[in-house]
């Protein structure tokens, strides 16, 4: 009896989730993007010191791209937190779809960072004075896996809509 009540209450809390499918996805996407950028900053720049603040071979377009994504990462993190609060107050939160957005956003940013920023724009490398290939492979394959998980979750939740 109590379990039934609990389920009813949970359903009520998320009763509008099908109406906010898009917002759930975008909230997750922005959060995933922001979190990966944050991990990148804390782990690789500050703790491991693998990445460099500025690499002399950086092209101008690399600086612009880095600045834009740096600014966007904390915009996305803060913005997605408020969007999440907004979903909850509208009883529209949908965990699975939100997670799908997170995986897709995280993977997409990591892949962009790994291929466009590290390789084409030569912003900085993952690590210096080592054979870079295994690092690049691991980085980009992990990014692809994250993206695939995200896409699968999003497709699954997209079908549940109807």
């Amino acid at each position, binding site marked *: 009896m109590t379990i039934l009540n609990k389920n009813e209450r949970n359903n009520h809390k998320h*009763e*509008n989730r099908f*109406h906010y499918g898009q917002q759930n996805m975008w909230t997750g996407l922005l959060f995933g993007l922001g979190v990966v950028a944050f991990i990148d900053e804390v782990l690789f720049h500050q703790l491991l010191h693998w990445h460099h*603040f*500025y690499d*002399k071979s950086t092209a101008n377009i690399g*600086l*612009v791209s*880095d*600045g*834009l994504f*740096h*600014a*966007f990462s*904390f*915009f996305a993190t*803060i*913005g997605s*937190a*408020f969007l999440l*609060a*907004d979903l909850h*107050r*509208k009883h529209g939160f949908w965990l699975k779809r939100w997670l799908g957005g997170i995986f897709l956003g995280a993977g997409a940013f990591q892949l962009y960072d790994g291929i466009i920023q590290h390789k084409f724009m030569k912003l900085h490398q993952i690590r210096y004075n080592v054979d870079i290939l295994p690092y690049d492979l691991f980085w980009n394959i992990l990014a692809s896996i994250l993206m695939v998980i995200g896409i699968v979750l999003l497709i699954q939740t997209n079908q549940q809509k109807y």
Partner: protein
Amino acid sequence: MHSHETHTQNFSIIVQLLLVLPFLISLISYIVAVIYSNQHKKRWSRFRILSWILGHLCAIITLIGPFAELTHVNFSAHMIGHLLLGMLAPLLIALAAPMTLLLRSIPVKRARLISSILKNSYFSFVRNPIVASILNVGGLWLLYTTPLFTMMHESSLLFILIHIHIFLAGYLFTIAFIYIDPTPHQVSYVFRSIVLLVAVTAHSILSKHIYAYPPNHVPIEQAELGGMIMYYGGDAIEIGLVYLLFYQWFKRSRSSIYSPETFSN
């Protein structure tokens, strides 16, 4: 040579006093206005009073005293000064809602006159987020990538003008995005978010540019440290700005929540 040094030192004390005087006057005026208007209006928020005082302290320690003198010779200290005077002080001062206080402290007739002045096309032009961003971040690009930075340390007049500009442009920038005081000609949250994103980007690119290409006569180590202070210190204050912008959106958009009945129709 010795007399020349004492001369510039005396001169710089005059410059420091000139720059600090307006802040002292506004600090005292605010407190007087609070005491006066509290007598016949609702009590003024303590948070705002504290914010006003802290904002003024940030500006004053950058403009006078031992830290101010250090900012002339050390670029890292100069950068901390930039963050305090151009970013943190304006934010704290804007949060103290000085216009709201002014309008409630003076007779209604004069308050109407002031609000009609604030509605005129000049103020709405400079308060446009794009114009305010160009005046603020564009001014910084001009300062740090041209010989202006060296000239500023040689001419007292330029020094005063640039410091006034840094503070005013920082204040204008803050109130272009965060609406604390009554704001005529409001623009949408989406528009403000996009412009703020671009402005923050331009600020972080400039920090890395300074790191790589030091302004004239700045030693490379000081430029590197200064660039990083500008990058991460700027982030901290910008995160506050972004938080306030989204917080205002969150509170304002409460009225647009749909009830389940909206969907069943």
